[in-house]
């Protein structure tokens, strides 16, 4: 059924939208998808989800498939711009609306939803500078080739350049089935080789968990501080644990981003204008804040930190709020 | 002179397999190379075939020096070989037709593009040239040892060879195929093709050899041209006199061990009875594919009789598999040693000692932990008793000559007492001297029944108290006890059946 009072075609319902993801596994993407699905349900949208499975060629193929299926709009969630730009243009040519999340398709007709990795990194690093001053020995966890990490890396480079007192004593990191434990194994070697590291910037929660595990194994939890990005229920528990060296993380709520992406698509279908740049502001979440508020899960976080749970970006009176 | 070999030597570790051997062959001549197991015959063959290299010595072939580094090079010079091992003839998973044409694929005599029909036609042509009968579309792995030898022979004969080397090609052929094979070799000889021939069957040598060369310990110790005194040659070869006396039949047959009543091998084959008694040696003979191996494997629990009843030592006997058969005291030495008995080279369990101990691990290592000494002792004993030529119990079976490998198989099943010992083609490649010793040992045991399958009627007569002919899966005749007078009769019977 449709929504009474909504502009066409949402008054009748059954609008087809495709959500084409690049990365399928992992909490972030699950939550993003769940948010998108919830918003789609609230809008009576028939959402077709394609799984990119980290395969850029396949994701490109799926855009073509979505065009063949006759959808009204396509939401592209991450991916490789080079692989997508021309097929996105094909979709536009066929009158299909396109929304891109966290992948810069560099096309004025495509609104860009962003959780702003730059902002994430800035928030976390600002807090690190506030806590530790501008001169300290740092460990940095980074693996190149992952777009969000690469963007967060740009900020790290900038902050280092601006604060010559920050010494990057070691750079490590690994992405595998067991990212957290593999990173922990590396972190232990790093801490042994560089006992004077006091700050670790781990801009991905799996990395942060690995570093925390290493610090616990070595019994140096009180000597280091970990700053990260992203958050999940398990992360909250680790951050608030007694003696945890993980002191702050910066994050957006992926479900909110998912809902915003769908709303951007829906508004376009209804004929409204949406801004080209739609930024969902991340929030800084500190250990102190969490402990003080007694937050233990992501839902409680959403309830207690409203900035984390909703976004007023791109919405309209006829769009019902999604429940997630 | 087609081939002349001067001072050829080759050592494997501490074993001097060939020790300055010299030999020559003329065009159109059939030279029999004789020698006890481990004398160095196959080593010589392998060097000529381009499989291994000599340490010293020179070879001239067809007027030019010869130094083949691969089988392909040997074939290009006109030397074609049938090797002793039946494991190296065809490919499991490919058809018999493919096996027949394998070297034609390799040397380009076949067209690049193939069709199933032309392939089959060419393979059939090869078979009809030699007059053998083989199922062309069957998977090669399903062929028995004898059929495999036929494939190898047919393939070799289809080649344009100047020198044909045959290393025990007839070890498990029956009289009929062997006779057909003799005709073929004579035909080649008439066309001027030279043949270097290795066999432990005196019948072969008598039928074919123009000249014999006797090898001992890697050296040529004697040569004889026609007329050939085979007994003398054999005595030179084994280094002791040959006792030509057949062992006598024991007068007292013991208690029955196994009794079969009304058994059928297949649903539509006739039923038969059979009783085997303690202390007797019974030989089962018949043409190739008659069902000898099948009967033995059914008794060993590899499949079931279509009907009928078996009783072992008074209790019903219907083994579900080799494990149960062995537990009941029924053991089988299979006819294809590579497939049925040996662990591959480089893998734990390839040594002589562990090859012998494999069925007895529970008995010899009762606490589960391996006691190397127990099996070393058994192997040392076997090496001495059967005259196995080896560097020791820890030597790999793959370092043994063909005949010595076969002795290891026999030693395995002789290492512990059993009720019924079954041997399928037990003397393949075993030299005359060793065979006599083994036969004597087999016959000296009165605590078990022995049933052996052989395609050679002579051999059956030589070893058994009783000879049973099998044809198309039925037992045909149990010959009366006096074997010598009946030898011609069995031979005739054989011909008639074939």
């Amino acid at each position, binding site marked *: 059924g449709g929504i009474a009072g909504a502009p066409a075609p949402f008054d009748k319902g059954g609008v087809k939208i495709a959500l084409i993801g690049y990365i399928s596994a992992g909490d972030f993407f699950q939550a993003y998808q769940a948010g998108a699905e919830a918003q789609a349900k609230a809008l009576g949208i028939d959402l077709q989800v394609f799984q990119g499975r980290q395969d850029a*060629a396949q994701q490109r193929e799926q855009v073509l498939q979505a065009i063949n299926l006759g959808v009204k709009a396509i939401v592209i969630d991450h991916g*490789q711009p080079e692989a997508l730009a021309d097929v996105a243009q094909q979709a536009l040519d066929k009158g299909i609306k396109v929304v891109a999340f966290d992948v810069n398709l560099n096309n004025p007709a495509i609104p860009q939803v962003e959780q702003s990795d730059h902002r994430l990194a800035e928030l976390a690093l600002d807090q690190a500078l506030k806590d530790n001053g501008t001169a300290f020995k740092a460990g940095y966890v980074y693996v190149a*080739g992952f777009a969000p990490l690469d963007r967060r890396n740009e900020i790290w480079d900038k902050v280092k350049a601006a604060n010559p007192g920050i010494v990057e004593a070691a750079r490590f990191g690994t992405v595998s089935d067991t990212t957290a434990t593999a990173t922990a194994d590396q972190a232990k070697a790093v801490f042994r080789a560089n006992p004077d590291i006091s700050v670790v910037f781990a801009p991905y929660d799996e990395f942060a968990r690995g570093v925390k595990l290493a610090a616990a194994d070595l019994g140096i939890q009180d000597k280091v501080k970990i700053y990260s990005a992203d958050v999940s229920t398990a992360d909250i528990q680790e951050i608030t644990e007694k003696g945890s060296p993980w002191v702050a993380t910066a994050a957006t709520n992926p479900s909110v981003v998912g809902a915003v992406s769908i709303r951007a698509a829906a508004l376009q279908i209804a004929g409204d204008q949406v801004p080209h740049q739609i930024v969902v502001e991340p929030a800084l979440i500190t250990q102190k804040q969490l402990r003080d508020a007694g937050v233990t899960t992501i839902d409680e976080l959403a309830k207690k930190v409203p900035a984390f749970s909703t976004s007023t970006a791109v919405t309209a009176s006829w769009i019902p709020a999604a429940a997630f | 002179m087609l081939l002349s070999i001067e001072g050829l030597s080759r050592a494997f570790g501490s074993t001097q397999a060939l020790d300055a051997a010299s030999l020559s062959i003329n065009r159109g001549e059939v030279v029999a190379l004789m020698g006890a197991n481990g004398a160095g015959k196959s080593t010589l063959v392998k060097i000529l075939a381009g499989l291994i290299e000599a340490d010293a010595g020179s070879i001239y072939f067809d007027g030019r020096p010869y130094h083949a580094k691969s089988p392909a090079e040997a074939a290009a010079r006109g030397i074609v070989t049938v090797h002793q091992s039946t494991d190296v003839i065809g490919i499991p998973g490919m058809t018999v037709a493919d096996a027949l044409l394998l070297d034609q694929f390799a040397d380009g005599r076949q067209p690049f593009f193939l069709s199933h029909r032309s392939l089959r036609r060419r393979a059939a042509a090869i078979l009809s040239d030699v007059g053998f009968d083989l199922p062309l579309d069957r998977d090669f792995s399903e062929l028995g040892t004898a059929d495999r030898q036929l494939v190898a022979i047919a393939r070799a004969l289809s080649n344009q060879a100047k020198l044909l080397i045959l290393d025990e090609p007839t070890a498990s052929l029956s009289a009929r195929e062997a006779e057909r094979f003799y005709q073929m070799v004579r035909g080649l000889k008439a066309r001027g093709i030279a043949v270097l021939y290795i066999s432990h069957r005196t019948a072969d040598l008598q039928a074919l050899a123009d000249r014999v060369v006797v090898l001992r310990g890697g050296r040529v110790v004697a040569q004889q041209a026609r007329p050939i005194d085979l007994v003398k040659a054999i005595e030179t070869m084994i280094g002791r006199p040959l006792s030509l006396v057949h062992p006598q039949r024991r007068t007292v047959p013991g208690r029955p061990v196994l009794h079969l009543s009304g058994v059928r091998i297949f649903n539509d084959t006739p039923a038969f009875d059979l009783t085997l008694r303690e202390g007797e040696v019974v030989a089962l003979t018949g043409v190739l594919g008659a069902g000898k191996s099948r009967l033995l494997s059914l008794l060993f629990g590899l499949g079931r009789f279509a009907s009928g009843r078996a009783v072992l030592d008074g209790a019903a006997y219907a083994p579900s598999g080799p494990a149960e058969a062995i537990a009941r005291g029924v053991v089988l030495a299979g006819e294809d040693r590579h497939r049925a008995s040996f662990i591959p080279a480089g893998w734990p369990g390839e040594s002589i000692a562990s090859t012998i101990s494999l069925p007895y691990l529970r008995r010899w290592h009762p606490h589960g932990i391996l006691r190397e000494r127990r099996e070393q002792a058994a192997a040392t004993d076997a090496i001495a008793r059967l005259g196995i030529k080896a560097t020791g119990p820890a030597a790999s079976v793959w370092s043994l000559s063909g005949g010595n490998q076969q002795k290891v198989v026999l030693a395995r099943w002789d290492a512990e007492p059993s009720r019924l010992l079954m041997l399928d083609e037990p003397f393949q490649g075993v030299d005359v001297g060793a065979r006599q010793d083994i036969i004597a040992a087999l016959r000296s045991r009165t605590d078990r029944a022995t049933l052996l399958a052989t395609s050679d009627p002579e051999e059956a007569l030589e070893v058994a108290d009783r000879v049973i002919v099998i044809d198309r899966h039925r037992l045909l005749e149990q010959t009366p006890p006096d074997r010598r007078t009946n030898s011609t009769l069995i031979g005739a019977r054989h011909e008639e059946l074939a």
Partner: protein
Amino acid sequence: MNTRRDPHALADALPLAAQLRDGLRRGVVFLLLAALVLIFSVLQPAFLTLANAMSILQAVAVVAIIGTGVTVTLAVGGFDLSVGAVAASSVMAASYAMIVLDLGAFATVALVLAFGIVVGLFNALLIVRLKVPDLLATLSTMFLLTGLQLIPTAGRSISAGLILPDGSKATGKVDPLFLAIGRSSLFETLPLPVLLMILVAIVLFVLTERTRFGRLLFATGGNETATRLAGAPVERLRGFAYVLSASLAALGGIIVAARIGRGDVSSGASLLMDSVAASLIGFAVRGLRRPNVGGTIVGAVFVGVLLNGLTMLNAPYYTQDFIKGAVLVSALALTYGINRKMR
């Protein structure tokens, strides 16, 4: 005239039931495939269109091409674990050639194929000359390449404007002609990668199943000693198989690079798994129970149809792997499990 009793040739003279069983065994993959197509078409009419069929083939083309290479190494009794890494590093090599070295499409393709051949020769050297077991040799090549591909760019993906480790900026760009390899279609219907897949399939099918060369490849895998004794150059045959599989993997990498238009850092692990899966499923096709090129292609298409159909039905990604596994298990159980009574 064969008068002998033949326990294994019973199939031709046997009851109808057994013949049916045998037919089922040979046809089970095709039956399952037909069933899938039927179900998906009923539930989602858009499934059974020419465009979607081409999408499916397009999606499986790379895996099928790499899979045929793996199949050839399986045929010679080996196993190439490095194909995924070769394909992944070919993607990097192609992008590097264009973006950093500023080469054109032809030079790039030639360079990447040459790279594949070199890797194949390296594998062949390890396996044939140094006698390193196949799995071991290709596994180390896999690690080598997984690392090697990252070194020229210090782990970064390659796209226009890349900053090189020495701080300078790459000046080249991706040649549109190169992109056409992955993105253009013949007569607006047949995507070029699909055409390449069909060509590779035909050539390799004929080569392996219909020529004496193919016989020797299988013979080498079945019994290397016997094949050498028959005078075949088994070493060269095995070497050939590895060079072929690495070249095909490089071709697969070229197609991927042309489709995504940049050099993306990836381990190639999923390409390896998927192409191995295709060649292994191929064993079951036509009940052959051995590596075969035709089966590999069918296997790849089979998985492609399954995943495409499930996606169209909006099945969550985590059920897709499970269903893939379940369908695979049933196909195998039917192919191998049936007919066991006959022995």
